[in-house]
């Protein structure tokens, strides 16, 4: 494989009460790449985002950030680590402090992490960040509500960049935006990444957006990874029945026999995850073994892996 991993998880698991939201998730995100996590609601993808940033504590499993064992960090060390990991949320209105000017929003994280020698320097950096995300320096003294949704997301990106992070976790960053604005933000994020070499964990339900943004992709269902691999393998030769169904459900995909739906039924509740393979209740190919045995990951070449008993044959 290419570059060494910046972020690695092993057996990452999170339970809320007796609900297992995330089960045994292994991720390995090469430095400087964009890693996509796709899935429908209830797939646990947003929980993974919060786990790797240690916004919530995992029930079990390992998280490594470069050489650091993230789970072992506490207090001041964790705080310093946070400088290197930033998050961009779906709703910039909810994630920006509405009482802070854009300038304060951009300089505060710098002073918290001791970046810049004085206020003037931090402010200059704030203005540079704004220029980088395509906003005028005059925006520094205005408040979030004075901006449109797309502009607010630009501010959120600038804020995430303010601490010069090595990892950015973006959770549905463009889902709330109109398509014309969405394209602006996606391009901006791609440019940012190219420019700074930032590693990105990109979470989305939108398969088209993930395809555009990500080098590596993992498909999640009911808290587990069903399939993962490089973009072209996932989109051109998906091996897991769920990935196949997901891709052919995208509007505009060719319809066999005039039907769009490839899957019957809906995602089971996380309270009652099916035995064996989590996907078997909706899988068109399910057979007896799927009921009793949890499928293991099968290596399919070029780093593509899928967890399905069909691949045994």
């Amino acid at each position: 494989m290419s570059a060494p991993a910046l972020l690695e998880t092993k057996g990452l698991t999170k339970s809320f009460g007796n609900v297992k939201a995330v089960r045994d998730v292994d991720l390995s995100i090469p430095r400087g790449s964009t890693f996509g996590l796709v899935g429908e609601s209830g797939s646990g993808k947003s929980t993974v985002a919060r786990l790797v940033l240690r916004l919530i504590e995992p029930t079990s499993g390992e998280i490594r950030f470069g050489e650091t064992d993230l789970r072992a960090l506490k207090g001041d060390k964790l705080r310093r680590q946070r400088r290197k990991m930033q998050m961009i949320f779906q709703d910039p209105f909810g994630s920006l402090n509405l009482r802070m000017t854009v300038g304060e929003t951009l300089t505060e994280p710098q002073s918290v992490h001791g970046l810049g020698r004085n206020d003037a320097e931090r402010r200059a950096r704030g203005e540079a960040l704004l220029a980088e995300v395509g906003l005028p320096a005059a925006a520094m003294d205005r408040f979030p509500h004075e901006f449109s949704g797309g502009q607010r997301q630009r501010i959120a990106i600038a804020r995430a960049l303010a601490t010069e992070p090595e990892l950015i976790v973006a959770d549905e960053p463009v889902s709330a935006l109109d398509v014309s604005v969405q394209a602006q933000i996606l391009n901006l994020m791609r440019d940012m990444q190219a420019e700074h070499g930032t590693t990105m964990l990109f979470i989305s339900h939108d398969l088209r957006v993930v395809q555009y943004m990500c080098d590596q992709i993992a498909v999640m269902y009911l808290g587990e990874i069903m399939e993962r691999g490089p973009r072209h393998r996932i989109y051109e030769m998906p091996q897991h029945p769920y990935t196949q169904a997901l891709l052919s459900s995208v509007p505009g995909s060719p319809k066999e026999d005039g039907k769009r739906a490839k899957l019957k039924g809906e995602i089971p509740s996380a309270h009652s995850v099916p035995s064996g393979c989590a996907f078997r209740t909706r899988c068109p190919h399910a057979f007896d073994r799927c009921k009793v045995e949890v499928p293991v990951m099968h290596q399919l070449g070029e780093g593509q892996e899928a967890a399905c008993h069909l691949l045994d044959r």
Partner: protein
Amino acid sequence: MSPLDMTAAPGAGTETKVVLEAENLGVALPIDGKYVPITTDVSFSVRRGEAVALVGESGCGKSMTASAIMGLPPRGAKVTGRLRINGRDVLDLSPKRRRALCGSEIGFIFQEPMTALHPTLRIGRQMTDTLCHNLGLSRSAAMTRAAELLDLVGIPRPKDILKGYVHQLSGGMRQRVMIALALSCDPSLVIADEPTTALDVTIQAQVLDLMEKMRREFDVAMLFITHDLEVVGDFCDRAVVMYAGDVVETATAAEVTRAPHHPYTRGLIDAVPGTGLERLVPIGGSVPQIGAWPEGCRFAPRCSRATEKCAIRPPLEGAPMPDVRCWHPLTEERT
């Protein structure tokens, strides 16, 4: 004729009738004591058996147009122009007679069935209220019919569901109930406002399949409001593209999604990530605020083809191309 016991093929032998006709439909809302236009000059028609998309980004006025057609615009709204439903002018009808069209002639499917269905009334009660009121059925006859409708939209154990509440259903089931409710009184027009936007992609496919089946079985005219051009190409026959309160282009769905003539429509297509990885071409700038539309062509400030001529507002008919509100429409075929 009840669609539940259809004998004849839908639409057979009859020439397709225009169900909905909007002509220069405009909605204005009072803001700070002044009427501010939200939509202007919206003209299009929908025929029986046809699905027409009303496409555009948020704030373009597509949902406002839908609520004006329902006769349920926000408080204090002023609706102008002409609106004909099944050949009848409906804008001058009394509120009571206007309301009588709802449910019986026009069915409505909302985006969020969770909030669009009553939280504390049983599903059965909501359905039978509608059936009893519009069709004059008895409670028990209405209950039987409601169960048939739920069965028709693919809901297992309809009798149990009728006794339940919306919060007990999954997202896909809720939208099926909503569809059954909208179709319950055999309307000739169904307006669906982003009916699949809130659903997961695999469920979205199921609901689109169902809507297509229902559309054919009930032989309705369907107005499909959406922001998703892929859904338009997949589901609709024709499309009406709106921008800043205006219709900018009307064409077949295939034309709009593959070879549009208005620069805005082109821009929308180029902004959506496709299967190719080439860099997206976003539309520069942002949608103008309501009440701050530019004079002349409203898209001109964001348009790469704009010239001096665009200071004059292009008409929908009478500009270089019919049904394209643009002085410089795209003529070359591009894919």
